[in-house]
């Protein structure tokens, strides 16, 4: 362990005085504030910081837009914040190739602007905020209701450049849309929450923006009626981008985004309205303002089990929770006013991940729930990629 003053000056010698500062509240993770923040401007200096941390037994947490840092267990140690936001260049973008390569510190907002100008998009969920960085979204594997049409990050990421926990700069995948050479380590890094490697560059498949998009909403008396509509619409191949069911008072609100070619949007809107009407759907009343979510969790289940589970959750949680269900995907997000409700926001036999909670509520529990059966393989991977547990120690499944 090095003393604070020498840590600062050592980091300054790696990334420069102007890119180093003392730790502060704004980069805290679960209430822990690091000694120092380094904002490397090159991949090589980022790797040097990681090697430095290995040599001095220091713990690093990589941070981008800090939009999803509430995910994960309370870190066991946190000495250096590795701010990736200076690595924000678009490295290569050829719209006709339908691929893009960018550095991981670029914000989704900047990426959306660059691809939007060419009538294209990297298919990240539209609900992810513009301030989020590519690296953070990949590390946290963030997805939302549009996963049903756009896929998850694992589906459209074709290559990554990362620095492993022991400081090796390495590539996985490539820049072409189809590639089966070698192990697909992109899959391993995506969703690893900065516990195996720091992502510094990513290549994606891009796709054309929908020519037209429109939203429609219907209210139902039961969760199962609301959930049946998008599942039927999916079987009819209607042009649905996303579907979400939320609790509004005593009723259930189905919100659907339709997108694609104008003719497809027109027909899909008509047919979805007919399906909704057959299921007893009505024009929604005044929207109920969403609760501010201080505590949030996500539950995974089969789509067929979802309506009943949604009703159960609603009756367990009462009015002071916002529930958003993705009926075609089989996931429910619950926003809770306080951590006390977490206990009630669980269902027997259903996998749950707590996505946000105050640190005092997170301590003593594993926010990822029961470790999966494949935990020994995950532990072995952690040992291989981050042998000295320098990266985000304690934050992942089973406190890896």
């Amino acid at each position: 362990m090095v003393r604070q003053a020498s840590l600062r000056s050592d980091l300054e010698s790696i990334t420069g005085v102007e890119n180093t500062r003392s730790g502060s509240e704004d980069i805290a993770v679960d209430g822990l504030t690091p000694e120092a923040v380094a904002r490397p401007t090159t991949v090589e200096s980022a790797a040097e910081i990681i090697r430095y941390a290995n040599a001095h037994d220091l713990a690093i947490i990589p941070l981008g837009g800090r939009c999803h840092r509430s995910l994960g267990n309370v870190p066991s140690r946190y000495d250096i914040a590795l701010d990736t936001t200076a690595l924000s260049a678009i490295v290569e973008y050829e719209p006709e190739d339908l691929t893009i390569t960018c550095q991981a510190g670029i914000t989704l907002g900047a990426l959306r602007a660059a691809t939007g100008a060419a009538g294209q998009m990297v298919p990240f969920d539209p609900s992810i905020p513009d301030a989020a960085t590519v690296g953070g979204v990949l590390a946290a594997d963030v997805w939302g209701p549009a996963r049903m049409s756009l896929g998850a990050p694992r589906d459209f990421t074709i290559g990554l450049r990362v620095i492993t926990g022991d400081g090796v700069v390495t590539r996985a995948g490539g820049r072409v849309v189809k590639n089966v050479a070698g192990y697909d380590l992109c899959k391993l890094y995506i969703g690893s929450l900065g516990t195996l490697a720091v992502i510094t560059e990513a290549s994606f498949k891009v796709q054309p923006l929908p020519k037209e998009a429109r939203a429609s909403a219907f209210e139902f008396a039961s969760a199962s009626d609301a959930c049946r509509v998008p599942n039927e619409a999916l079987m009819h191949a209607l042009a649905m981008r996303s579907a979400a069911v939320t609790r509004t008072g005593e009723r259930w609100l189905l919100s659907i985004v339709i997108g694609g070619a104008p003719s497809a949007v027109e027909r899909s809107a008509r047919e979805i309205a007919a399906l909704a009407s057959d299921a007893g759907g009505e024009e929604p009343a005044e929207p109920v303002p969403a609760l501010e979510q201080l505590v949030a969790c996500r539950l995974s289940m089969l789509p067929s089990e979802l309506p009943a589970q949604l009703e159960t959750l609603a009756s367990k949680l009462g009015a002071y929770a916002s529930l958003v269900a993705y009926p075609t995907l089989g996931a429910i997000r619950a926003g809770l006013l306080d951590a006390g409700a977490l206990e009630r926001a669980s269902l027997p036999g259903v996998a749950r991940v707590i996505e946000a909670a105050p640190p005092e509520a997170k301590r003593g529990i594993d926010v990822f729930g029961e470790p999966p059966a494949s935990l020994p393989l995950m532990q072995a991977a952690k040992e291989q990629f981050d042998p000295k547990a320098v990266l985000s120690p304690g934050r992942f499944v089973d406190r890896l």
Partner: protein
Amino acid sequence: MAASLVKDLQSAIGKKYVLHAPEDLLVYEYDATIERGLPEAVVLPQTTEEVAAAVRIARRYGVPVTARGSGTGLSGGAIPCEGGVVIVTARMDRIIKLDAENRLAVVQPGVINLDISKAAAPHGLYYAPDPSSQKACSIGGNVAQNAGGPHTLRYGSTVNHILGLEIVTPDGEIVTVGGETIGLPGYDLTGLVVGSEGTLAIVTEIVVRLLPIAPATITLLAIFDEVLEASEAVSAIIAAGVLPAALEMIDDKTMRAVEPFVNAGYPPDAGAALLIEVEGLDEETREQADSVRATCEVAGTREIRIGMSPEDRERLWAGRKGALGALGRLAPSYYILDGVVPRTRLPAVLAGVYEACERYNMPVANVFHAGDGNLHPNLMFDDRVPGASERVLELGEEIMRLCVDAGGTITGEHGVGFEKRNYMSWIFSDDDLEVMARVKLAFGAADSFNPGKMFPSSKGCGEVSSRMRSAIAKVGADAYV
């Protein structure tokens, strides 16, 4: 040792399902490549427990294990190149569950790819990845190689359609990774095992995603005078905002080879044809077809044929599907390459391929997934002519170099196997390969599962080139890539 290895396998799996007589083993020494590797024993288990038992027995004797599906692979993935035990999944051929409501199926690895779609069809669903050997290839082999196919362009490869796996690790443990639901916590080991070419685990159960069958599909065949016009049209179609379900190219050599057998109606003087498929809702599909047609006309197509009915569409596909079988009649041997380049580099790389083949005086036919930039040059030669095999491999290497230099890769869907293991260092640094090797360590695999595959070999040059020579593909008349 071999005798007691066989005896132990027999007591675990049943005498009838352990092959050890030399004449029985011969069947399992090759796949769709002509590389050979003779196993010491072949087992045909029916259950996951039997697979795990076979793995543990092989481990006890210190011999490697190679899993094998239908043996249709094009990179030597199923060849036991260091001997040992071959586990054949052919008897693990049950569709365990077809859950139409949740749009998924749980299948054993020996299930034939197309049989999943056949079983799902009554529910309006299908399994999207369609490698060209889908009537014969097993889903387990598809998972091992992360198989692609013509419709990868829109729907992605095998990995995009796998939710979870049951695997047997090199220790003989049975482990579940992923599951039937999405968003499960932990590292994405499912995504890691898919495409690991049988080197990390043996897959014994697979959860596949099923997709709704599109209500409308239109197939277009656009004939061009020049292959370069056709390859430029590929980018133009996509630039117009259309993402077809499939976008295939058939060059003049292929068309002329196919015509006598398939009667596809290809004009004898045409330079290339594009086969384009669009699908979705009726209106949208018609609009996309109109857009594709307009783009092809601007690009200089001389004739466009459109198929709306299943029969008409099948007829348009016939030439594409019959291509490899027809090419097989032109020369005693041929060597199929599998490179990928960025779409916009397709015209330049294709020109480079023709130039190189001309320089080698080696006939080449190109029939491939143009929309993905996934080239399949088929080099035709006579392996009985002294030196011909060496020259074809040299040429193949030069073509792979063209792909890599254009920013592409050495395999889009066939896998590395050992055919291309020494090209891995063209696209990955020593550090990259070392980091990949860590995954093997994490799985405890060392070299117990499918040794000699995927990673550059430290074996001597003579050894390598003899393996390379024998990796030249020799496939049946009804095969196609």
